[in-house]
Each structure stands twice: as structure tokens, then as C-alpha cells.
């Protein structure tokens, strides 16, 4: 095993590399290129996923997979996989496998129209950089991979660059992500100034208390931006919809989770948690993200923006778990912390499955109708029934409805909160109860949001010609979504399979096991999930629902006789001219909640007629607009200030005269010499 495992990981990485190179070499033959790149990704993912599972189950401690040292100081490539890396890699590989199957069909509509070779190169390299982020052990190298990941994803975001909105989204994304990287870099430099080492597996003992706090804040801002934590989320609802859907699935499914990995790796494992307020801060931000994320998602009419906002909400759920875990660890309540960490990690994994699936579904909608606008969709369940069914499964999963995997994550989060409130000693309990309320409110909003997403897009009458003419999607796309839907159901019914892995991960980073004694691994499937004395058996619930449906059918047959059905038009109050414009629209659906939470959305509406009076038969135009609090009150003023400052100072600093620039250099050098002399 010791010899075999590293080889598996190496082979997987190598296959991705080969895939990337081949997609460049074969750029003229687009069909073969597309097939080969995706097949390489799939093969690499299978190897990688197998290696990750084997690593977690049978190998303890970090596993070195690659080592290369350069003559440049501090720059050495040492790749190691420990249990946390392996867990995130597992999520990555599973998702990449499914997305690659999907891409075979999805990218086919680029063939002949776009540079498929370039796309596949970027796609493969993007995955490779994420693997490097999860495995690098050197802070400088981590930073380089982190930046590369951002840059490659930026290229993918602006891949359809002829649309000006995509360019704007890309610019916003690259600015935000670079700001974030700057914070991370500063944190690394502070660490280096105390420990003289960039080793991530090293010890942080040399760091004084105060600088640890500062480093934590820097990491929080840096990783929080990547995760899409409110109020740092502004790039997310722009960038995710702009990217091609298979890339959005990867970005939302796994790239934003690199930030969760970063928090765990750097804050939990490296810094060590000593301050309870770290957890409190994360918890509070998580609660805000949960509520606002889904509230904004509900108002969206663009399917991919809706999904992007919903990712903000799910990151919030993960952060609630992480925050509670940090608080408990700071109070040295290892078991309680481990509950919360289990919930956070499980939800991370689950979210990558169903959110990946939802973005793939959105891509399928876009593929068959060429639109992302919900107001133009409708009736798709009759035109692409298979896709509709899978999207329904994902919608149920994300709404935390039993028996899908989303519910398990939510249940564990509630259990973690419950277990942490139980001791009843601290004032933090009030905050935890508010977290319960926030999760409850968000749970209701998520159901509303995904009833809207599915109901408006797939049910009812088509709202436009495009929706009416929707074409069937390629088989590979449906296969990939079907696979993800099966996984969602599997991990929902048999959560212990994945939880045994999570348990090992948590054990390896100083937590304690929360599963207790399992009665033999063979019964993993039929054993109730038990946390702190509370147990559930999701498979039994599904079984009971099915039995009840069958019993109902039988009894109805007995008492009611044969079922007679008559097809007739929808009731129209005798008007007899029901059109698709008379059904509820996406905006209409969320209107009541928009009015209830109007303080958040600050909607404004405008009614205008083209003719003289509103009561004439002239077309009437009705527009509603929402404004985002954060963009209006935080980012716009900041951007304006920077702009006006730059305008005023640009010609004073950058005068264009070389003499001035020489003075700048001289002054800088002098200051540095002075600094080094006296401090």
C-alpha cells in the first residue's frame, strides 16, 4: 500500500497533464480532441478517487507523492496528501468524473464555432491547479497554485468573451480574487517573518498571540472572498453565470471549497484554535450568508445567478458548522467541535454533488433553449423529461428533503448546534439559537427558491418560442446528471458510507470520533445514523413513503374501483383563452416574499404606457428592479473613491518624467535601508 498509493496519485496527476498537452496538440481535430481530453480526465478521476478513498481508509499521516526542489530559495514543489487533502480531492475527483462525461456532449456545440482545444486545455489545467492547491505543502507554492487556479478560472469565465457582460464579470472576478490573494500573501509573509519557514506542515509555535489574530483575519478575508462569504460575495453571482456550465459546476462545486480547505488547513491545523471569537466571527458571517444568500437567490430570474446565490447560502451552512467547531475547539470541547466539523465537511461534500448537478442541469436548459432567463422558460419537463427528472432530484437534495443527501448535512448541522447548546453554560447559546432560526428561515426560503427554479423552468406552459422548440440534450449529459443524482440518493440513504471517511479525517486533525462503535462494516448500509443518542434511518423513511404510496394505490383500487381519467384544459373561469402569459411568472412567484423582505431588496417599480393614458389599449410597460445593498453601499462608493483618488493623483505621481521615477526608486531604497538598520 505504501508504494502503491503514491503511484496512483502520480498516475492521476500525470493523466491530467497528458490530457492538457494532448488538447493543445490536437487543436485542429476538435471532435477527437474533445473526446480524448474528457476521457483522460475521467480516467484520471477514477484513479484519483480510488487513491483518495484508499488513503483515508488505510493510510495514516501525510503521504508524500511528489518532491522537487529548485535552486530558487523557498520554491520547492513538495506534494503531500493527508486526510483533509484526500477528502477534498475525493469530492473533486467524483465531480470531475461526472462533469467530464457531461462535457463530451456539452462542448460539442462549441465544435466548429470556438477553439475547443484551448477550452479543453484550460479546463484540464484548471482541475490540475485545484489538485495542486489541495496537495502543496509549501506556502509559496500554494500561493502560486492558488493564483494559477484563479487565473485559469478567469480565462474560463471569459471564454465566451464576445458578450460584454461576461467581460465585466471576468474583470470583477479577477479584481476580487486578486485582492483576496493579497491578503493571503500578507498572512504568509507575517508567518515567515516569525517562523523563518514556509512549510505548511510546520509548527506555528513561534507566532505571538497578537499576530495570530491578525493572520486569522487576513485568512478570513482572503479565503472568505473565494468562498463567497457575504459581504465578499459580489463576484460570485456574476462570474458563475458567465462561465460555461460545466465550468460553473466545477467552480461552484469544488473551487469555492478550496477556501474551506484553506480555513481548515491554515487556521485549524496550522495556527491552532485558541480564540473563541474566531469561531464566533465565522459563525456570524455564516448566518448572514445563509439568510442573505438564499434571499437574493429567490429574487433572481436568471437560473445560473440563482444557483450562484444559492452557493453563497450553502457556504454559509458550511461556515456555521465550521464556526461552531472553532468555538468548541477553543473551549477544548473536542467532541462537540467534532460534531460540528463532521456536519461542515459532510455538507461540503454533499454540496459539491448536488450543486454540481444543478449547474449541469442549468447548462442543459441553456443547451436546449439558448436562454438562462426563467421568464422565457416553462414546460420543459415535457420536452426534456429525463433532464427534468434529474434536476428535480437535485432540487430536492438542496432543499434538504429526505431521502437525499442534502438532508443529512442539514440534520447533522442541527444536531451539532443542538449538542453545543445543551451544556448551557455560555452566552454563545443565544447566537447558536439564532443560527437555528436562520437555518430554519433559510430552509423555508430554499424550498421556495427551488420550487420556483424547477416549477417555473420545467412546468406549466412554455413562455417563449425557444422553450417551445427546446431540443433534446445529448445522452452523455443525461448520463452524467443521472450519475450525480444517484450519488445524491446513495449518500442520502446510506450516509454512514461517507461519514466513516469524514470520521477518519476528523480523527487525523485532532478531533474525536462521533460515530461511536459501528457494528461491523458490512452493515454500514442498514445501520441507523446515530449522533449523540439521536438516530435517524433515512432508508427506512424512503421505504415507508414507498410502502405508503403502494398501499394507497391498492386501497384506492379496492374502495374506489378503477381509476378513470379525463384530459381537459386548465380551469380558466370560462374565459377559454388561457395563454402562457397568464401563468405566474418567476418575478410574480417571489413577489410576496419580496414585499415581506423589502428592506433587503429595496425594489422599485415603474409603470409606463407608450400612449397617452394608462387606460388605453396601448402596450403598458412594467419594470421592477432590485438593488443590492452591498453593491450600492459598500462596493460602489469604494470603487468611486478609488477612481476619483486615482484621477486626482495620477498625474502627480506618474508624471511621465523619468527623473521623478528615479527619485521614487532612490527614496524607496533609502527607506528600506533605514528600516533594516533600525528595526
Amino acid at each position, binding site marked *: 500500500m505504501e508504494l502503491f498509493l503514491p503511484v496512483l496519485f502520480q498516475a492521476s496527476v500525470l493523466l491530467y497533464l497528458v490530457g492538457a498537452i494532448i488538447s493543445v496538440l490536437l487543436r485542429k481535430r476538435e471532435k477527437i480532441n474533445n473526446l480524448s481530453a474528457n476521457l483522460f480526465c475521467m480516467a484520471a478521476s477514477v484513479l484519483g478517487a480510488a487513491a483518495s478513498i484508499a488513503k483515508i481508509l488505510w493510510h495514516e499521516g501525510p503521504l508524500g507523492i511528489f518532491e522537487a526542489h529548485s535552486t530558487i530559495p523557498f520554491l520547492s514543489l513538495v506534494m503531500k496528501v493527508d486526510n483533509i487533502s484526500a477528502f477534498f480531492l475525493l469530492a473533486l475527483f467524483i465531480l470531475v468524473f461526472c462533469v467530464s462525461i457531461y462535457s463530451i456532449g456539452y462542448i460539442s456545440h462549441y465544435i466548429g464555432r470556438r477553439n475547443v482545444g484551448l477550452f479543453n486545455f484550460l479546463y484540464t489545467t484548471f482541475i490540475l491547479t485545484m489538485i495542486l492547491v489541495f496537495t502543496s505543502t509549501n506556502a509559496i507554492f500554494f500561493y502560486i497554485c492558488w493564483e494559477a487556479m484563479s487565473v485559469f478560472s478567469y480565462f474560463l469565465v471569459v471564454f465566451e468573451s464576445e458578450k460584454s457582460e461576461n467581460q465585466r464579470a471576468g474583470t470583477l472576478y479577477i479584481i476580487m480574487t486578486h485582492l483576496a490573494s493579497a491578503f493571503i500573501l500578507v498572512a504568509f509573509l507575517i508567518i515567515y517573518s516569525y517562523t523563518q519557514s514556509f512549510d505548511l506542515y510546520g509548527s506555528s509555535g513561534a507566532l505571538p498571540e497578537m499576530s495570530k489574530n491578525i493572520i486569522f483575519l487576513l485568512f478570513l478575508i482572503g479565503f472568505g472572498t473565494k468562498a463567497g462569504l457575504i459581504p465578499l460575495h459580489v463576484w460570485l453571482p456574476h462570474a458563475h453565470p458567465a462561465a460555461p456550465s460545466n465550468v460553473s459546476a466545477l467552480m461552484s462545486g469544488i473551487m469555492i471549497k478550496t477556501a474551506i480547505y484553506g480555513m481548515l488547513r491554515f487556521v485549524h491545523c496550522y495556527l491552532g484554535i485558541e480564540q473563541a471569537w474566531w469561531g464566533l466571527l465565522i459563525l456570524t458571517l455564516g448566518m448572514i450568508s445563509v439568510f442573505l444568500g438564499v434571499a437574493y437567490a429567490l429574487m433572481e430570474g436568471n437560473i445560473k445567478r440563482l444557483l450562484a446565490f444559492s452557493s453563497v447560502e450553502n457556504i454559509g451552512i458550511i461556515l456555521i458548522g465550521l464556526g461552531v467547531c472553532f468555538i468548541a475547539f477553543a473551549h477544548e470541547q473536542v467532541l462537540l467541535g467534532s460534531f460540528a466539523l463532521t456536519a461542515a465537511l459532510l455538507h461540503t461534500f454533499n454540496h459539491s454533488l448536488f450543486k454540481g448537478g444543478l449547474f449541469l442541469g442549468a447548462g442543459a436548459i441553456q443547451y436546449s433553449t439558448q436562454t438562462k432567463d426563467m421568464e422565457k422558460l416553462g414546460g420543459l419537463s415535457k420536452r426534456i423529461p429525463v433532464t427534468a427528472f434529474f434536476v428535480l432530484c437535485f432540487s430536492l437534495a438542496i432543499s434538504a428533503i429526505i431521502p437525499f443527501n442534502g438532508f443529512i448535512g442539514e440534520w447533522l448541522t*442541527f444536531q451539532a448546534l443542538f449538542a453545543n447548546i445543551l451544556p448551557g453554560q455560555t452566552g454563545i447559546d443565544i447566537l447558536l439559537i439564532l443560527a437555528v432560526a436562520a437555518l430554519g428561515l433559510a430552509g*423555508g426560503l430554499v424550498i421556495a427558491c427551488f420550487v420556483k427554479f424547477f*416549477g417555473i423552468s420545467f412546468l406549466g406552459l412554455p413562455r417563449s418560442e425557444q422553450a417551445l422548440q427546446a431540443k433534446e440534450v445529448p445522452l452523455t449529459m443525461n448520463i452524467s446528471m443521472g450519475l450525480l443524482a444517484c450519488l445524491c440518493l446513495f449518500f442520502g440513504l446510506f450516509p454512514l458510507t461517507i461519514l466513516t471517511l469524514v470520521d477518519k479525517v476528523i480523527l487525523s486533525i485532532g478531533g474525536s470520533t462521533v460515530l461511536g462503535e459501528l457494528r461491523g462494516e458490512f452493515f454500514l448500509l442498514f445501520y441507523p445514523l446515530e449522533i449523540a443518542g439521536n438516530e435517524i434511518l433515512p432508508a427506512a423513511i424512503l421505504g415507508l413513503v414507498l410502502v405508503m404510496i403502494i398501499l394507497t394505490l391498492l386501497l384506492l383500487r379496492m374502495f374506489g374501483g378503477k381509476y378513470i381519467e379525463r384530459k381537459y384544459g386548465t380551469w380558466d373561469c370560462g374565459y377559454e383563452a388561457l395563454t402562457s402569459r397568464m401563468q405566474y411568472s418567476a418575478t410574480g412567484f417571489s413577489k410576496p416574499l419580496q414585499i*415581506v423582505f423589502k428592506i433587503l431588496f429595496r425594489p422599485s417599480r415603474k409603470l409606463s404606457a407608450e400612449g397617452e393614458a394608462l387606460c388605453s389599449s396601448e402596450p403598458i410597460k412594467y419594470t421592477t428592479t432590485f438593488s443590492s445593498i452591498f453593491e450600492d453601499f459598500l462596493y460602489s462608493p469604494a470603487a468611486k473613491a478609488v477612481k476619483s483618488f486615482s484621477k486626482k493623483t495620477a498625474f502627480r505621481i506618474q508624471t511621465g518624467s523619468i527623473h521623478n521615477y528615479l527619485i521614487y526608486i532612490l527614496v524607496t531604497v533609502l527607506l528600506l535601508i533605514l528600516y533594516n538598520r533600525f528595526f
Partner: protein
Amino acid sequence: MNNLIYIFLQALTILMLAPLVNGLIRKMKAFIQKRQGASIFQMYYDLYKLVRKGSVVSEVSSWIFKATPYIFFASALVAAMLVPVSTIILPKHIPGDFIVLVSVLGLGRFFMMLAALDTASTFGGMGSSREAMVSTLIEPTILVSLFTIGLISQSTSLSQIMLTVQGAGFPLAHPVYIMVFLALLIVIIAESARIPIDDPSTHLELTMIHEAMILEYSGRHLALMEYGAAIKQLVFMTLLVNVLVPHDQIIAFTGFLALFLSLLIYFFKILILTGIIALIEINTVKFRLFSIPNMAAFAFILSFLGILQYFILGGSNV
């Protein structure tokens, strides 16, 4: 095996009783209004009649419209299995706790809201959209209330909660329970679509929520939707009376006599709660749709006060 028999009996009890509760509420309302009113068994007759009729299905709708009645009904029945009617013969394992209960009911609601959108009818969309609002606003209250009682009993399992509360004598004398009781009462009114949140007896487009969602259903499908809603209402009522006013501790017998007595007392409690709901329905008018958030906020504050009192007074002296 015992588990299975128990939960099926449990579901059967609620299944048989649910239409009666609706009949009782109607009868009591009629009585207070000095009307004769329909028989308390009217809903059974209605259901029987509907079951034997064929269904009209909209041409626009997809399989979701036809599957929803079965899913909704089955989810209500499974929810009924999770809330013990009596704790006399409680088995060791019930496959879920109150978080599962909320999720299972969510399954039914999710499909009901989808089915309402499926027929492309304006009424359906309206009902669905309003239901989304009401259920969202009421959800934090359900969770925080149940969390409060759960914390006192140190368990999220409903049967465990009931057993613990039984050891506490008469819980309604304790402020925590009073708050939770009032909060859950509002939840029942909202979840079972009653005045002042919704009016079950009209089809007026300005007011209806639940009725608008099931407007397109007929015959057998309608029967299942109505029956499912009745079961859901009784599940919430059972939750309220059995958790906050436990009764099994006063039964001194054992065996079947105890079970019989326990069910009898349970029925009596439901009867009283039915009276309370009928009184509320008689004495209030339906709220404007956008007054519902105020009521939901009121319910949430009650439940939050409940948990604050738990923190202040502690759960042990209950």
C-alpha cells in the same frame, strides 16, 4: 418487527381520526354560530364520494401533477408515524426525530407547490407563491420551539421528549412551555390553513392559499390532497397536545386497558384543542395577506422568549 407494527398502528390511528377532527371543528363552529351544521362524519362521506369519482387532469400538466397526491398523502402518513399518539407501547427505535418530521412534511409541500405550478393556472401559481411565503415565515418558529423542548429533554427524538416531559408533572405551569404552546398554536393555524392565516371554506381568489394550490384537483386526487392536509393538521395537533400536555404518566394500569385509556385521554385532549381552534376561527377575521408576517414574527418571538426562559430558568426544574 415490533417497530413496524407500532408505526403502522400509529399511522392508522391518525388516519382514522383525521377527518373526524375536521368534522368536529366544523360542527363546533356551527354550534357557536347557532347553526345545525353538517354531521361530524361529513368528511368521511366526502372522501368516499371523491374516491369513487374519476379525475380531470389538465392537458398542460406533467407526471408531477398526477404523482403529487400520492406523494403528499404518503408523506403526511409517514409524518404521522413519527409523532407518537401514545407512549404506552413505545418501541425502542422510531426512524426519525423532529428534524426528519419537518423534512418529510417538506417533501409533501415541495410537490404540492410544484403541482400547483404544473397546470399553468394563475390560481395555482398564486397559491404556490403564497404558501412559499407562509411556510417560510413559520419555519423558524417550528424549529426553535421544538429545539426548546428538545433541549429540556436533551434529545431531538419526539418519543424521548414525550417520555421526559411526562416525568415533569404538569408542564404547562412552566413559562417555557406556555410560550412554546402559544407559538405552536400559531404554527398549527398556519400549517393547517385556518383563519386568520387562510380560510379553508372559501374559494375567493383574494384570500385563498391552500385551496388555490389544489384548485385543479378533482375526484380521487382531490380526496388524497384533502385527506393528506387533514392528517398533517392532526399530526401538528398531536405534537402539541402530547408534548406539552402529556397524559400517560397518570395512567396507573398496564396492558391493553392502559392503551385504551391512553387513547381515550388523547382523544379528549384533541377534542379540547379542536374547541380552541374553532373558537379562534369564530372570533377572528382573516388577516390581510401581508399581515401574516406580523403574526409569524409574533410566533417567532414567543418561541424565542421560550428559549430565553429556558436559558434563564434552566430546564432541570421543569
